[in-house]
Every structure is written in C-alpha cells, then in structure tokens.
C-alpha cells in the first residue's frame, strides 16, 4: 500500500526548502541555496517517481480500473456538516502523472538555473520562489477538494507573479508580472463563482463527492440542471465559469494576453511555469472535472473545445510573425495548450471514446518535456547572445552544437515528426477530432502545420541564417556553449523528447480509468506528417538563408500580417477597456463622487451649520432693547402657540 508519509513529503519538501531558504538561507548561505533546492527536489522527484511506479503498476489498479486514492485528508475549514475545505492528497492517474512531470521539470530547471542564474544577487531568493512554486503546483495537482485546488491555484499564480517580476527593477518585468496576475485573477473570479455555483447545488466541495453527485441521476443533478440563469442551466454556468479559471491560467483566448509578457521572467522560469507546468493547470482542471463535463454537460465541453481550437489557431498565426524567440515559444505554448483543451473538448468518456482525453493528457506530458527543452535551449541561447530577438541571432549552430542539437530535436518533436514524442500525442488528438468534429479537425491540422512552420522559422533564424556577429569583445567567438549544469538538463530532456512518445499512455491515463489499446493508423498519420514536413521545408527556404522572401510574403498579406504582428491588438483592446472604461469611467468617477458628493455632503452639513450660525448672529446684536423685544416676542409667541396651536 502507499505510504502517506512520503507522499506528503513530495509537496512538503519544496515548501520546507522555501522556508529554509527564505528565512535563513538568503542571509547565511545564499550560494548553497541552489544545491539545497535541487537536492530537495531531487528527493521529491524520486518519491514521485516511486509513487507513480507504485500507483500505476502495483496498487492503483483494482479490477482493471485505476482508482482514485485519497492518501491524506485533513479538514481545513468545516463550513457545515457537508461543506468543508479539506487539505489532502488525491492520487489518480492524472495527478500522479502531473506530480512526476512537475517534479521532473522542476528538477531540470533547478539544475539548469544553477548555471543560468549564477552570479545573480538574488540567487537564493530565486530558489526560494522556485520551491514555493513547486510546492503550490504539487498542491494544486494533488488536491482532493475543489477549494483546495483554488487555494493552490492562487498560490501558483502568486509564485508566477513573483518569478515573472523577479527582475523587479525592470519596469517591464513588473508590468508583466502585474498583468499576469491581474488577468489570471480576473479569470479566477469566474473560477471562484463557478465553485460557489457547483458547491451550492452539490453541497460539497470534495472532488469525488462532487463528481459523483453531479454525474449520477439524483436530487443534486436535477436541482443544478433545472436551476437556470439567462437560459443556461446552473451546471453549464458553473462549469463554464470554472473553465474560465482554467482558461485564465492556461492562457486561452480571451485571457491569453499575459503569457507572452510573462516571458520577462528568467528563462528557466518560463520553461517551468509558462511552458510545462502552471499553464497546463487549466487543462488539468478540466480533466479533473472531466466526468461532469462529459457526462452531464456536453454544452460546456463544446465551449472548451471551441475556445481551445480558436486559441490554438490564433496563437499559431501570431507565432509566425513574432521575432522575440521567447514570445514565439510563448505563443507556441498557448497553441499547444489549445490542442490539449480542444482534445478534451472533443473527447468522450468511456474507453475508446475517451481517446481525446487520453491524447490531451499525453500531449500535456510530451509537451511539457519538449517545451521545457525549447525554453531551456532558448535560455542557453539568450544567455550567450544577451538578446531575445531573433534578428540578433543566426548561425549559432557552430558555436553551440549541443544546444543546437537538442533544440532541433525539440522542434521536431513539437512539429509532430515521427518518431518524436509530439507526433504520438498529436496523432491521438487529431484522431479524436476526426472522430467527433471535422471542423475542429481541419483547424487542428492547419494549426499543426503552422506549428511546424513557425518552430522551424525560429530554429533556422537562430541557428542558421546569417553568421553570428558578436557585439561584445568578451565573447568567445568559437565556443558559446553553456556550462554543464545547463547542458545536462538539455540533454536529458532531449533524450526524453525522443523517447517519451513510446509510453503506453492509453493504458495508464484515461478518462474512466480503464486502459485501452490505441490503434495506429498509418494512413491517418501520414497527412499531418506530410503537412508538417512541407511546413518545415517552407521555413527552410524562407529562413535558412538571409533573404527577402519572408518580407515579400509578409507584404502580400500586409494587413493580416500587421494585425498578427500586433497580436491582433488584444493588448490594446484590454488596455482600452481598463484604462478608458474601468479607470476613466468607473474609477475616476467613483473617486470623484466620493470626494465631491459623499465627502462633500458631510462637509456641506458642516458648512450649512456654520452658515446658519453666521446668519443668525444678528439676533445677538448687543443691544439690550433688541434682546427685550425678542424676549417679549418670544413670550407672546409662547402664549399664542400654546393657547391656540399646540394644545
């Protein structure tokens, strides 16, 4: 049986590390922090791997079905006998998969950062934040309770905020971190309300109970389905709102605007958070609630699917036009997460119908590996070139051979070239789309082609194209390779990018917990692969040498190109909404009203009192006879008043 103690250690080790580094490490052993963080994460990773092994191959499966195992559960806040926020650990295929991914990628990033962040004054703080993030992410994926996931959701968000804003002296980094936090916060509002809606009708916050109550016929399901608001059932609302939270974290349209900016953070952070782990939280969330989506509310699932495919395509198009390599990768991430999303959206629940779900999870798995690799590779490049812009690069293949090779492997993986990891997962997704929605399938194939194109555009621009000209004398013109701590993760990840596709995923992670056999249709696979190859070739012709072709191409579709280059003006739209509408039309008037009307009212009372006081001062004229007259008039007034009027 699983031992809860060491399962609990998986998330606890990072938080303990965070506390140690944060409270004492920063001051007393800053240099050692990296090692400490890495070691603790190594242990965490080994434990995860061990748990995964135990779960998948020893204890997880009962009668052919992977069970949801609650390894730990503490009541955190008991609102009523039914409703409670628990803190616990839930093991099921997806959470186990996730802890492995999170700890592994995090470990890689920790190792990598020892080289990348070397010499950084806030080196220890960096590791503290990384640990905090890892803890939050692990807490998120292990949640037993929808509120627990929300709590860690927010913690992940704040870790992301801290890491994006790590270079806090750069205004752009601060702005990006703010943007990331606020946009996701806005989405989280939906999540929160969604939780409230779901929990109100199901009278629970516990995942298992929630899913059980909202998927089986009964009072709970009836009440939530029958309650309607603006024409949609409360269930739809609840799920869509929860999905909104997921969309925020996963940078789905329309909440995607924060992700490209988030690249202001240190590159390893981008690899960890904004490529491999945190951004897939949305996918994870939908997967977590997948039974409800799938069984009780297909409408909400459709929303997921369309949002996913739209975001995916949108991101792919924008990615083709960007020149900042990290931004390209960011859009690529968004696009790939879109894949995962719509894969879920088109998926069924049981057995083979659930191939979309499986494909999504599979893609999540493979994507995290090769996208981390891409980011780390990009990091190595940036580390050397000291620029993010691909225009400053070119011809680096000779200077950084290992980086070059790993990057190439990752590009092939993401482009879906067999036999690299991406090919297999993408294949399952396309299959699922083909089976359920041809429209999405078409868009997905197109996106896949675009993916191959822009990835290789990136690749050629970095490593081929013009010769690299160093801007700085200190650069060793012949040896640009990063230190060993950075290369090691690259190599490990590259190897995994090659082999990860062969994991028999459909036997391990499925929607209903029952494994199934996927068939491999060579005929079905050939189309997308050929498209990808064609896209790569196109990219090769356009970018392998410095040429005017791309410029000409861009000019022919100028309007569209410009729009895409400017990310379809989403930032501007948001800026318009926040600055002009929220700030100018709500905030400013609110502040004005407060100062003028409410405060003014209080001041008015005071000044009215004052002026009344001023206006009646003439009664006190200082003349005795006036006093006597008032006296006498008062007397008469009293007489008349009390004899005739007020008796």
């Amino acid at each position, binding site marked *: 049986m699983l031992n809860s103690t060491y399962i609990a250690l998986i998330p606890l080790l990072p938080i303990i590390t965070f506390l140690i580094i944060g409270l004492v490490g920063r001051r007393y052993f800053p240099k050692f922090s990296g090692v400490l963080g890495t070691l603790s994460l190594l242990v965490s990773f080994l434990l995860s791997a061990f748990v995964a092994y135990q779960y998948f191959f020893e204890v997880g499966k009962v009668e052919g079905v992977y069970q949801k195992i609650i390894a730990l559960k503490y009541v955190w806040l008991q609102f009523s006998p039914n409703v409670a926020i628990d803190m616990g650990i839930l093991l099921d295929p997806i959470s186990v998969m996730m802890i492995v991914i999170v700890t592994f990628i995090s470990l890689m990033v920790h190792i990598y950062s020892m080289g990348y962040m070397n010499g950084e004054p806030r080196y220890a703080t960096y590791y503290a934040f990384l640990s905090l993030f890892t803890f939050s992410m692990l807490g998120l994926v292990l949640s037993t309770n929808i509120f627990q996931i929300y709590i860690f959701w927010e913690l992940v968000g704040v870790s992301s905020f801290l890491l994006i804003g790590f270079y806090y002296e750069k205004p752009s980094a601060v702005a990006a971190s703010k943007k990331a936090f606020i946009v996701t916060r806005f989405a989280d509002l939906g999540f929160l309300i969604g939780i409230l809606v779901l929990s109100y009708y199901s009278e629970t916050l516990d995942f298992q109970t929630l899913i059980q109550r909202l998927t089986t016929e009964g009072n709970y399901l009836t009440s939530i389905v029958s309650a309607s608001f603006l024409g949609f059932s409360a269930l739809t609302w609840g799920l869509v709102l929860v999905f909104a939270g997921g969309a925020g974290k996963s940078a789905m349209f329309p909440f995607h605007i924060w992700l490209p900016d988030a690249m202001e953070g240190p590159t390893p952070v981008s690899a960890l958070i904004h490529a491999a782990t945190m951004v897939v939280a949305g996918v994870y969330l939908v997967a977590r609630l997948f039974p409800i989506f799938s069984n009780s509310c297909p409408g909400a699932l459709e929303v997921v699917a369309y949002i996913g495919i739209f975001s995916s395509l949108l991101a792919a198009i924008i990615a083709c036009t960007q020149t900042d390599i990290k931004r390209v990768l960011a859009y690529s991430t968004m696009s790939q997460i879109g894949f995962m999303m719509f894969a879920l959206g088109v998926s069924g629940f049981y057995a083979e119908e659930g191939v979309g779900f499986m494909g999504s999870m599979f893609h999540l798995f493979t994507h995290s590996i090769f996208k981390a690799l891409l980011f780390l590779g990009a990091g190595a490049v940036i580390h050397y070139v000291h620029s993010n812009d691909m225009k400053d690069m070119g011809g680096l293949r000779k200077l950084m051979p290992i980086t070059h090779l790993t990057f190439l492997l990752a590009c092939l993986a993401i482009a879906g070239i067999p036999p690299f990891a991406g090919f297999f997962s993408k294949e399952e997704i396309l299959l699922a789309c083909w089976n359920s929605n041809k429209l999405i399938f078409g868009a997905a194939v197109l996106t896949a082609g675009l993916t191959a194109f822009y990835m290789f555009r990136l690749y050629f621009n970095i490593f081929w194209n013009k010769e690299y000209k160093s801007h700085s004398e200190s650069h060793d013109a012949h040896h640009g390779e990063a230190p060993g701590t950075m290369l090691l993760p690259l190599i490990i990840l590259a190897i995994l990018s090659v082999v990860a596709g062969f994991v028999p995923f459909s036997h391990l992670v499925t929607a209903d917990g029952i494994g199934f056999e996927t068939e491999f249709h060579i005929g079905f696979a050939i189309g997308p692969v050929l498209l990808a190859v064609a896209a790569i070739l196109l990219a090769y012709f356009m970018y392998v040498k410095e040429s005017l072709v791309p410029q000409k191409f861009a000019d022919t579709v100028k309007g569209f190109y410009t729009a895409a280059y400017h990310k379809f003006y989403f930032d501007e739209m948001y800026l318009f909404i926040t600055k002009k509408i929220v700030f100018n039309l709500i905030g400013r008037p609110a502040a004005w009203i407060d100062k003028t009307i409410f405060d003014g009212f209080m001041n008015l009372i*005071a000044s009215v009192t004052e002026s009344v*006081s001023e206006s009646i*001062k003439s009664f006190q004229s200082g003349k005795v006879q*006036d006093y006597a007259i008032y*006296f006498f008039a008062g007397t008469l007034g009293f007489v008349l008043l009390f004899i005739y009027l007020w008796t």
Partner: protein
Amino acid sequence: MNTDFFILMKSELSLTLIIFILLILKVWDGIKDNSTWLHITNFLLLLNFAVGFISSADGMLFNGMFHSNNILVLEKSILNFGTLIISLQAFDWLKSHKHVPEFFILLLTTLLGMFFMISSGNFLMFYLGLEIASIPLAALANFDLGKLKSSEAAVKMILLSAFSSCIMLFGISLLYGSTGTLSFSELPGLIGGGHLQILALIFVFVGFAFKLSSVPFHLWTADVYEGSPVSVTSYLSVISKAAIVFVFISVLGPLFLNFQGMWYNMLFLSIVLTITVGNLFAIRQDNIKRFLAFSSIAQAGYILLGLSAGNQMGTSSTIYFLLVYIFSNLGAFGVIGIVSALAKKENISDYKGFYKTNKLLSWVLTISLFSLAGIPPTAGFFGKMFLVTAGASHGNYILVIIASLNMIVSLYYYLRVVKAIFVDPNDAPIEKLNASFSAKLGLIICMVGVVLVGFASCIYDYINSLTI
C-alpha cells in the same frame, strides 16, 4: 422657635452669620491684606459647607413659607461647594482688588437668596429669593470696575432681569388672582387650566427661562458672561443656574406638572431651541467666556431635557448632572480665570500653543471641556447620558434625537478649543503661569470630581434615594 428652627434653617443661618462676620470685619477695618481676607473667607466657606453635613430634617417653618428636607439640604450643599470652589479660584483675581469683603458679601447674599428661593413655600418667598439672587449679581457683574465691558454687562443684566422679573410678577399676580393663594402647597390643586392661567403660567415660565437662559430668553447671557469678571461668570453659569434648576425641581415642578401636555410641549420647544441655538452660536465665538456662555446655554437645554422626563429618574439625573456640571464648568472657568487674571487674555486664539507652556492647566481645561462635551471617562459623560436617558424615558425620541445630534456640534466647538491648545502653532503663547495655591486647589478638586464622580455610582444612588 425651637431647635427645629436651627436645624431646618442651618444653611441660611450659617450663611447669614458669615455675611455678618464679613460685614463686621470690614467695618472694624483691621484687615489690610487681601490674602488674609481671602483665606478667612475660604475658611468660613469651608465651615459653611461643613454645616451641610449636620443632621437635617424634613419640616416647615413660618407657616409654610420655608421648608426644608434632605434633598434641599443636598442641593444647598452642592451650591455651597460650588461657591467654595469659585472663591478658591477667585484668589488670583481678587488678590489685587479693592473690594474683597464687599465681593463676598454680595456673592453670599445672592447665595442666601438662592437658598431661600429653593426652600420657599410660596411665591412671595420665591420672588424675594429670586430678586436677592439677581440684584446683587448685577452689582457683582460690575466688579471689574475699571472695565467698560463689565459695566455694560451689569446694565444689561439689571435691565433685562428686571424686565423678566416684571413679566414673571405679572404672571404671579394673575395666578394669585385666579386661585387666591400664593402657597405652593395649595396652588397645584387650584390650577384648572383656563386661558388666563396658561397665560400666567407662561409668564412665570418665561421668568424661569430667562434665568436658565433658555432660548429665546437667553440673549443676555453671552454679553453678561463676557463682560463680567471670570469668577462672577462662573458663578452665574454654575451656581445661579443650578439654583434655578433646583427651585424648579423642588418647588415649581409640581405646579407646572399640572399642565401635563402643554408643559411638556413648552419644554420640548425650549429644549430644541436652546440646545440648537446655543450650539450654533457657540461655534463661532472667539472670546472664551462668551464661548462658554453659549455652551452653557446648550447645557441648559440638556438640563431641561432631564426635567422634561417628569419622573424620579429625571430629577435625580438633573441634580447629578448639575453636580458634575459644577465640577466641569468650574474646572474650565478656573483655568480661564487664572489666565485672565495673570495673563489678561480671554480669547480662544490666545490659547494657541498653550500646551507648550502650561501643560497641567491645558489638561485641566481639556478634560473639563471633554466633560462638558460628555466624553467618557469624565463624569460629564455620565451626567449627559443620564439626562438623555431620562429624556428618553418619556418616549419622545424626536427630542432625544435632536438633543443627541447636537452633541456632535458641541463636540466640534469644544474640540476647537482643544485644537487651539494642543495643535495650533503660536510664536508667542501665553507664558508660564504661576497660579496661587488656592486656585490650584480649586482645580484639583474639580479634576478629582470630573474624573471620579462618574465612576462613583454611590453619589447617584444617594441622590436617587432622596428624590421622590
């Protein structure tokens, strides 16, 4: 004549004795030094205050013209006590004055008048007491002989008080005409409530309202307070006012209460006007005596609020409040008196930066003002609370609301003074003042009272046990 006579009239007799002692000493002309005079007087007043603790009894003398009981003795003791404090505080001012014994003869005569007024059994005694309590006061108001303001105050006071007592007298005469008696014990039964009697009643009430400075009969107050010497002002605002209220409680209450509804309405109107107008005027004063005059007008409104309850709680609360009021107002006037006598400054703006030079005096003034504003933990809070509670016991919440809302305004102007003392910058604040021991003693007594009387519920309980 028997021992009863001495017991029942003990306060009056001791006071008369003191007056004569002072008169004889003056005529003997052996005491040249003002300080000696003051010490002698203070000692005599202390003895006089002690007389209040001699056993007392319920009873009537002179065929009902004079009556006395425990509550009346208590009231007189309160007045004696206040007078003692005023006398202590007057030290710095009187030290250089030419007419110290005369001052006390006049002052004590008015006190005697108040005593007779409080103990009066019929309108004649009441009227006599009232006049004795006001005519010498006008002379006292003129006691800053070199100051024009002082004379003006005296003129305003004597003319208006004569006018008001005339109107009151006319009312009394009509009451006499319609009932045939002047005795307070017989009158209530004979009052039926015809128009003539209402007219008479209003005339009498107006006389009261004048003395109590209730709006619109208050106009003399500010001018007289401002012009009179500080000691006289404090005497006017505290002792004179308290005496009038005591008269009302002990003597006239039953008479007016016969008019039930109308009487309440009259009070209602007076309370609303008095508190509001008093506050409105107080807001914009700069002379601190004038400021306190208006504040005391507003306080009079609260006193009326207590009286309006028309029950035991109202009576007890009013007496209690007056006790507290004596402490707090005399605390304030004590400081003002010291400043006026030593620094010759009487404006609020002069008090700017006062805290820098005179820490203790500032605190005394501040605490007194807080007590007047009804801020805990000072006794003023309890006093005012009980008054408002009593007012509410009648069930008329409109009145309570108006009275309570006015507390905000009153807080404003008290805080204005506090602000001047503590906050406002001033290049030339009042210099460090060296008050006499006796003035300080007076302030200490006031402070002890202000701080402790609120917590000592036994005082209220004692008052409550005496009232009916």
